[in-house]
């Protein structure tokens, strides 16, 4: 935005983090609170190194990301084609839409008790919740994306005698693309929340479980490590996964227009 060199503005942006860390480090000598409530930076750092070296952090993060990736792919692979197909018929879409709206409103963590009843505590129940969250969000967005295409375009395509496949490729996909992308992004954000939440409450491994387990023995240092890792992971997922998805879909969309 400004003409300021990148390095300089990056350094400027780092300043508050450094200041925060310094304040946090000297806080125990200024304020008095029980040490378990807020361990110092060096203690958290030591714990972080410990968790990294004994492999616990990598195992937890790996388990969480694997589940998220699987749930994101599976949920969207079912939800988007199904939503698009149903919404291509105006009457079916009018009938399905209210149900989709309602299910999207209760999707995710509210299913936790049912997931535990059906699958027991652990991996399957957590994955079910994330898939559930991703599915209903994308399903809703796919339907509303197709419905948002103006009726005049349907009529135009129809009067030009398009084949069903041409209708999908020339009208439905490009027309609903913005909403489909929004659906992908929203489903990832909701899936990520559902994942962390589910691991906290019914998980047996993963980053959320690592943190919740630590509350039992006042492992505040572990919890803070977890919070920072969760922030960094989301930034990475958002930046790399989403930049890639958007680039590719927009590029593909461009190719559709070229034909």
């Amino acid at each position, binding site marked *: 935005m400004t003409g300021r060199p990148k390095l300089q503005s990056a350094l400027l942006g780092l*300043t508050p983090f450094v200041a925060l860390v310094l304040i946090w480090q000297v806080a125990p000598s200024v304020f008095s609170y029980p040490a378990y409530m807020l361990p110092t930076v060096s203690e958290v750092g030591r714990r972080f190194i410990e968790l990294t070296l004994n492999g616990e952090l990598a195992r937890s993060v790996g388990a969480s990301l694997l589940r998220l990736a699987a749930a994101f792919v599976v949920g969207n692979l079912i939800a988007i084609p199904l939503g698009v197909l149903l919404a291509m018929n105006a009457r079916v879409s009018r009938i399905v839409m209210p149900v989709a709206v309602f299910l999207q409103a209760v999707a995710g963590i509210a299913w936790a008790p049912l997931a535990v009843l059906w699958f027991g505590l652990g991996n399957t129940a957590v994955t079910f919740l994330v898939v559930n969250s991703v599915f209903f969000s994308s399903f809703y967005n796919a339907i509303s994306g197709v419905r948002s295409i103006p009726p005049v375009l349907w009529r135009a395509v129809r009067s030009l005698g398009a084949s069903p496949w041409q*209708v999908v490729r020339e009208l439905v996909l490009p027309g609903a693309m913005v909403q489909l992308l929004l659906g992908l992004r929203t489903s990832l954000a909701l899936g990520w929340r559902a994942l962390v939440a589910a691991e906290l409450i019914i998980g047996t491994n993963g980053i959320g479980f690592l943190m919740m387990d630590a509350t039992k023995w006042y492992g505040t240092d572990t*919890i803070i490590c977890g919070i920072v890792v969760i922030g960094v992971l989301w930034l990475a997922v958002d930046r790399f996964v989403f930049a890639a998805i958007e680039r590719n879909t927009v590029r593909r969309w461009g190719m559709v227009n070229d034909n």
Partner: protein
Amino acid sequence: MTAAAELGTTPPRAMRRDRWWARAWQDGVEPLLGFAIVIAAWQAGSSLSGVPKVLFPSPADVVWALLDLFNTGILVEYVKLSLLHYLTGVAIGALAGVALGLAIASNRRVSDLLMPLVNFTYAIVEVAWIPLLILWWGYGPSIIIVAVAYVVASPLVHNVVTGVLSVPPVYGRAIRSLGGGSWSVLREVTLPAILPSVFNGVRVGAGFGFRALIFAEMIAQQEGVGYLIFTSAATQQTARTVAGMVVMGVLWLFLDRVYLRPLERASVERWGLTSDAGER
């Protein structure tokens, strides 16, 4: 017959306009038909499959559970408590988000300095703070309120700062040259410019906040609709869990359609700069 017609794509509206019964069917029956189909299939599945009620309660069981919860007064009390937690959290989050955003955006240098920190806190999902809050404050309503406030505030700060920075400085200078002070600039330029994105941010945050509410109530284990959903399953009253989920869905759709959406739309109509805003 064309291919598109075979697919049953949207027929011209004008053809249907004069048939009142077709419109009544379309507006009155079709929206409910989906629910009727789902409930019928659910009831059939539940009674024919022979799965125990604890694992798969039928819609009839859920209705009885709902009536029972209503008659004992639990439902009304928990909905009230959930709404109290939720509205308190949203109000605190909205005020804090706007105030913090305006403070950060008041000075370009300050905003350059603090934006990375703001973006990082935005990236940390609210549920990640819950274990820390539990250690600090124990299980209780304060966790619920903080979780909701956090998820409402963090995207708002981002929206407010980018909103304020995108206002061309010339408008502020115009007000100042006409003799207005900082307060006039805030009231006449900055606030009208950012309010649509503030209300949009509140609505998006409120959506995530509602999930955070249910989850925090589940984990804080004291009261509210989330607690009802969670604890009922633990005591084998699965129909109550499903009833709680239905209440949760209805509550959220009510809040969203009756308050949040109209509020957002009104803010766009009143202050929005886009020309098509009035058409919706």
